[in-house]
């Protein structure tokens, strides 16, 4: 038997607007900008909903109705769910139908898509619990498999998840860690009792997520027979193919006119047409296979960039200082018991914010390759710190 574990990550941050120092102590609206502005969460959410969420969820649901063996796993952040509740509640209803049919599983994570694990364990626990409660309220299920924001993973995180009783945890299948081993097996994280580790097959995932529309790629255009051939070849290294990617791959990163939807629509039935092939959810993958080996990742590995580390989020002075100042306020924030203030503070923990302050690729002048809601990393930092000032002002009030 050969199984594809298709896992899609669904997330939108709640962006702060170009919040001026002259707004501090006067206007505490950080997150609701006018519709046409660059940071309008509503405009961006509705745009991506039309280009990606709606057509792809329809595609997935159609295939689930046609093929009971077709299954998907989602991780859905709290900040996405809040925005969907406001601007596209039918998307939540649609995901709920898929969950109820038993063909979709929801993965656990932090509510705010934060890197709290690296700053404050109490905050991290709170956000994971908040997420789990939100998922239970909306979909009536409790996440059994965990993924951390940006796939930021290390041995101690695995231990934490093991102790919390998760069945599995997701991470990047990075060659430097795996060595000769293949990501197409289930592993046991070092020093853990029960939990299983599922590793992203980044080559086969990135063929779709990053290379699909790249005309300079020698393999362009990617066809179903070609891709199936590659998977068949890869199955010689193990029978579990973990295709982990952003949900927005479909329609937003790869636009409809690249043929990405047609590709998926053809690929799913084609894969299932062979009797030995199936799709599994992340929990099913954990149940199906015994660990092939133990894997240790003492240093944090992420799914980003060639470095696969946290440097895009937490390396330059601005990122370090913004996160430090943010988490320093936690005790004072919580002691106010002011729900709105606590939420406003927590929205700032979303990892997209320090990412927008990243200067790693900024000096190259290659701004076109750089996607951000802000004119520059410096401006993003500037507005972030102004919001933080107002939050501090509200604590003291």
């Amino acid at each position, binding site marked *: 038997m050969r199984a594809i574990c298709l896992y899609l990550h669904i997330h939108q941050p709640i962006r702060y607007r170009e919040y001026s120092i002259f707004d501090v102590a006067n206007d505490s609206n950080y997150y609701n900008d006018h519709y046409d502005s660059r940071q309008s969460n509503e405009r961006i959410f509705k745009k991506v909903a039309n280009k990606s969420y709606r057509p792809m969820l329809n595609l997935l649901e159609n295939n689930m109705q046609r093929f009971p063996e077709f299954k998907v796993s989602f991780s859905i952040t709290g900040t996405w769910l809040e925005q969907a509740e406001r601007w596209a509640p039918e998307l939540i209803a649609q995901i709920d139908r898929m969950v109820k049919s038993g063909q979709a599983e929801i993965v656990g994570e932090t509510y705010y898509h934060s890197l709290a694990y690296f700053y404050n364990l109490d905050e991290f626990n709170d956000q994971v619990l908040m997420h789990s409660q939100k998922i239970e309220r909306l979909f009536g299920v409790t996440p059994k498999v965990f993924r951390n924001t940006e796939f930021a993973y290390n041995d101690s995180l695995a231990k934490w998840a093991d102790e919390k009783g998760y069945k599995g945890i997701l991470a990047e299948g990075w060659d430097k860690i795996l060595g000769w081993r293949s990501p197409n097996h289930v592993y046991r994280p070092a020093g853990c009792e029960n939990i299983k580790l599922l590793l992203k097959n980044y080559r086969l995932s990135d063929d779709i997520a990053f290379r699909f529309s790249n005309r300079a790629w020698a393999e362009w255009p990617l066809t179903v027979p070609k891709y199936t051939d590659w998977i068949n070849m890869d199955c010689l290294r193990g029978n579990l193919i973990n295709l982990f990617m952003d949900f927005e791959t479909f329609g937003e990163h790869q636009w409809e006119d690249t043929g990405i939807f047609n590709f998926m629509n053809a690929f799913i039935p084609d894969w299932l047409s062979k009797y030995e092939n199936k799709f599994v959810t992340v929990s099913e993958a954990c149940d199906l296979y015994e660990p092939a080996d133990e894997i240790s990742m003492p240093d944090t590995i992420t799914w980003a960039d060639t470095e696969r580390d946290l440097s895009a989020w937490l390396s330059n002075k601005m990122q370090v200082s913004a996160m430090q100042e943010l988490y320093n306020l936690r005790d004072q924030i919580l002691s106010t018991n002011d729900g709105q203030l606590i939420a406003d503070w927590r929205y700032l923990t979303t990892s997209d914010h320090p990412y927008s302050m990243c200067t790693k690729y900024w000096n190259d002048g290659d701004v076109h390759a750089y996607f951000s809601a802000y004119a520059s990393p410096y*401006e993003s930092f*500037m507005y972030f710190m102004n919001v933080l000032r107002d939050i501090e002002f509200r604590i003291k009030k």
Partner: protein
Amino acid sequence: MMKILMLGWELPPHNSGGLGVACFNLAKALARQGVNIEFVVPYDADHPDANFMKILPATHLDPIYRYGGGSYASMNVLEELIPSVDKEVLVSIREIQKQYCDYVDKYLKNHRPDVVHAHDWLTYEAGIIAKKGHNVPLIAHVHATEFDRAGMHSGNPLIHEIEYEGLMMADRIIAVSETTKRIIHDKYRIPLSKIDVVYNSLDENYDKGNYCFDEKTYRYIESLKQSGHTIISTVGRFTIQKGLPNLMRAAALAISKNPKLIFIFAGDGEERNELINMAAELGIAKNVIFTGFIRGKKLRDIYTLADIFVMSSVSEPFGLTALEAAHHGDVLILTNQSGVSEIIWSALKYDFWDKQKLADEILAVANNSALKESLQENVQNEYRKISWNQVAKKCLKIYNRIIKHKRNH
């Protein structure tokens, strides 16, 4: 060997601004690439450092007269500078331009350059003579348009006309930035495909020489810095083009949030009195320092003293002072309407009218050491990105293209 006849209006040490420095560096870098350059200037003087090319004096006038008494500098300025001079000798800029044209016309009867490369409107008429009368390919190099000088309003109609004709007649146009390319297209309706962008670079000798900052000279400003003040500087002519009233209004806004801000306005020009008056009326006179016109070491001292350099121009074709300030470790705040903002990423930017955003940016740098240090450090890797050798290579490509095109027709 490729022969280029350059038409310019000034070269160091007889320059009043950036135009002469840019022409000098460009010619030098081209000469290094093996180009034979002859450079026409409208006066007769020694250029001790320019032995890599042949300098041709179009008149026998002293360099001081080169901007005449016409629209460029006022007659009064010249009279003040040289009070003993006989007014009859003060020829108008139009008269000098006519002599310049005659000289180029005569010169081309016996010489055959591959390309004539004319710098700014002052020399475009001579360039047109070369093109029309002698069938030599013409490049019009735009360091600034009359729209820039007039703060994006209409300027002198005669200059507009000369500029327009030069741009129309030219085989190719070189603009010093995308901003300038846009203006040439939007205002003069020249097709974008006819215009190449070639950025300027910092003067090659800028970091050589023996500049040394002496802390004891500026005890007052140093003491302010030690007591936690942030120093913001701006440098340039006080003219409508530079957008300084908006900077002054932004200064008042910023000072209302943080009184420990000192603004140094270095330069002079027709807006000086208006600016002094504005500082007083806004109640920030104590936070604003006017230095008058400065150059050389004193100018470098201002860059060194300052934490932030603001380029507030309504329209700035390039903006070399920003690169100089970066060299001295300043944080740069640039208008989106400046050419230099197209090649510098490690800077804060704003639209020239947005005084609140400028105030926001000044305050953010003054209040966040992480932001200040990031901008300071990152711009260091950037400001030398473009060298004069690269500039020369781009020009050479354009020359070759024109010459080939001409041969084929």
